[in-house]
């Protein structure tokens, strides 16, 4: 397939890369502020509390969602053996999406927020995002419904589910039946966390796992280990994940039964995670040499895509085992409200899902554009990001444990803040490495595209 039939996917990948550049630049400013609080101080739009949601919105709804939906635009027609239902609607969705992100960044910097985590955006932007989600979902569902391929590969199951789930999660989570976008009292927090956790569980996870299930057999040149196991993982994900949100409010002012239900579901999440993981590693079995040494069998792009895919699988397992562990009442007091959670969130969104996102781009973009990825910057991107992320996760995890145990011991609050400084400094150095790796990635992508035009 070539020509116009791939335009939307290509646009979306390129937009994703550009927004990632913006998101990590903001992240770097934030990391500096933790060590040097006077950095850029005294300016309203550059104040920490205004930049933080910009970072998260651009990373989650810009980069990550865009690269994942781009992958859906790429894979769904291929797995269904038909053209995308409407290339025009898909291109429209990309344009609307970029408009949405520009407006999101401007409004957040201006301090226009609904005061709810991950759900900050003002009502008109919520409506715009829901509209473009509907556009994406309609287009892809129509494509699946007229498919010529009889078999429904597991990737399509996951994408279908994500497209059904996300509009519901977004609508309910943003309390969109009122323009205020919030409920009264503690139920507001319950709805907020149903939403906050399920954009991860019912959007990034099915889209990410679906993409990984597509890429893995292609890259290791071997069929998926078990279709049945992948379906077990699929249905248990749907069964347990939507219930976990209230584990963000353990010991808080919400009904204890609701906390317990969330804890039980969180622990049950071990099942789908193991199903995915076992399937993943069993598929790679016998093909490890592709990761090292025998790279002549893969193109430069595919080779680095496989590296990102496999290491992303490791981060996925780690973060998904942390989840059930953290949700336990015995562990909560030591980790909640601390930097541990910041590390955990980055392990999931940057480690697992963004690594798979990079794999998608290194795999699919050359196939869409005919451009070759140049191996040196791609490898530099991979190794620098991996080192940076490891330093980031290690420093914040330790910082979090220091916070949690110091609070348990009754150490004065500001003494605990002061004791974190070395760890926040390591985080800053790690952040510099990660941001540099992303700039290298952007350079690699755009220089390969320049080659195509010539």
């Amino acid at each position, binding site marked *: 397939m070539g020509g116009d039939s791939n335009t939307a996917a290509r646009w979306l990948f390129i937009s994703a890369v550009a927004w990632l550049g913006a998101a990590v630049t903001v992240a770097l400013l934030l990391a500096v502020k933790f060590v040097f609080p006077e950095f850029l101080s005294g300016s309203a739009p550059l104040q920490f509390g205004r930049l933080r949601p910009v970072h998260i919105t651009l990373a989650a709804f810009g980069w990550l969602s865009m690269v994942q939906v781009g992958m859906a635009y790429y894979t769904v027609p291929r797995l269904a053996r038909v053209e995308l239902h409407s290339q025009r609607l898909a291109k429209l969705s990309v344009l609307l999406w970029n408009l949405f992100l520009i407006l999101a960044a401007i409004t957040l910097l201006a301090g226009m927020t609904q005061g709810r985590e991950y759900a900050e955006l003002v009502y008109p932007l919520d409506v715009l995002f829901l509209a473009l989600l509907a556009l994406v979902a309609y287009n892809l569902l129509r494509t699946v419904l007229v498919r010529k391929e009889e078999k429904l590969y597991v990737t399509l199951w996951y994408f279908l589910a994500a497209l059904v789930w996300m509009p519901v999660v977004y609508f309910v989570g943003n309390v969109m039946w009122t323009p205020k976008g919030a409920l009264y*009292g503690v139920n507001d927090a319950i709805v907020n966390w149903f939403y906050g956790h399920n954009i991860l569980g019912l959007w990034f996870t099915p889209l990410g796992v679906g993409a990984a299930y597509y890429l893995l057999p292609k890259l290791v040149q071997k069929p998926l280990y078990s279709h049945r196991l992948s379906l077990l993982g699929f249905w248990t994900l749907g069964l347990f994940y939507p219930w976990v949100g209230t584990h963000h409010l353990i010991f808080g002012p919400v009904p204890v039964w609701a906390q317990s239900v969330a804890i039980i579901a969180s622990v049950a999440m071990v099942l789908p995670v193991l199903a995915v993981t076992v399937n993943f590693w069993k598929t790679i079995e016998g093909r490890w040499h592709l990761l090292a040494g025998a790279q002549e069998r893969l193109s430069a792009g595919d080779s680095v895509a496989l590296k990102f895919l496999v290491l992303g699988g490791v981060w996925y397992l780690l973060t998904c085992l942390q989840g059930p562990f953290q949700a336990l009442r015995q562990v909560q007091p030591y980790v909640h409200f601390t930097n541990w959670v910041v590390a955990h969130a980055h392990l999931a969104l940057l480690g697992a899902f963004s690594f798979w996102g990079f794999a998608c781009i290194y795999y699919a973009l050359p196939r869409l554009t005919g451009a070759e990825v140049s191996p040196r910057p791609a490898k530099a991107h991979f190794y620098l990001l991996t080192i940076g992320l490891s330093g980031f996760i290690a420093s914040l995890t330790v910082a979090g444990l220091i916070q949690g145990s110091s609070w348990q011991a009754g150490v004065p609050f500001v003494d605990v803040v002061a004791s974190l400084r070395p760890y926040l400094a390591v985080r800053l150095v790690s952040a510099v490495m990660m941001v540099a790796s992303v700039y290298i990635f952007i350079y690699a992508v755009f220089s390969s595209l320049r080659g195509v035009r010539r």
Partner: protein
Amino acid sequence: MRALTIAAGVAALVGVALLVTVFLPMGDSSLYEPSPELKPLNELQERGRQIYIREGCWYCHTQQVRNLSMDVQYYGRVSEPGEYAYLSPVLLGTERTGPDLARVGGVYSDDWHLAHFINPRYTVPRSIMPSFSYLSQEELEALIAYVQSLGGAEAERRAEMQRRMKRAMLEAQRLGREEEMMQAMVPASYRSLENPLAGSAEAVLLGRKLFAENCSGCHGSGGGGDGPAAAYLAPKPANFTSAEFMSTASDGRLYYSILRGVPGTAMHPFGAKLTEREVWSLIAYLRTLEE
């Protein structure tokens, strides 16, 4: 057909979860029943709350005392659903880069908050909170009114007491009877205490470090009562280099003020933050500052 079945199946799964985890609590009227003393915020406090939301204060400060002994020890009584009945969004928070604020109202004076918002390091030298010096005077006043309301009726009473004491202190100051009033506030059993660590070089060294970390923002790095926060405070912070002040202030009076704070001023209690040895060490250091 197969695809539609899957879509219906996953929709049903999320529907059931929504019903139980979200809609069931929404139908629980006990979660909306206001606490007995709960009042809606007044206009100024509500305006302050909007600034608190706009500036993203809630990313680093929680507003919930969890049912954990460590939370109670730091922040007071456990939070209940009824205390949030009138709030939307609810701002429970998610991270404690800074301390919980659920019951912070009245713990510090209005002046302390003003200096703290202008630059948090003025009052808490090791703070990493951003400076909010770009807010207008009116915005700062609203934000202070909001923060002083946190903790409900109990907080309002504390904040009101701070304001009443401030007026009394300023009046006493005008009459030149400030130290007299201070002495009257210190119980006799404290007034006559003597510093068991007086003259210890070790204590002075520890005291110097503690002073730089905790006191220098208001009292100045040399103890002259001229720290960067002082410009925003009335009454002014004590000047430990003044021979007159240091001769009237007994060890016991200093000990009591550090332990309990001085209501109506920015001097808040350090009793929960410093050990007995640390407080006496600080006093030993203060005695070296006189010029």
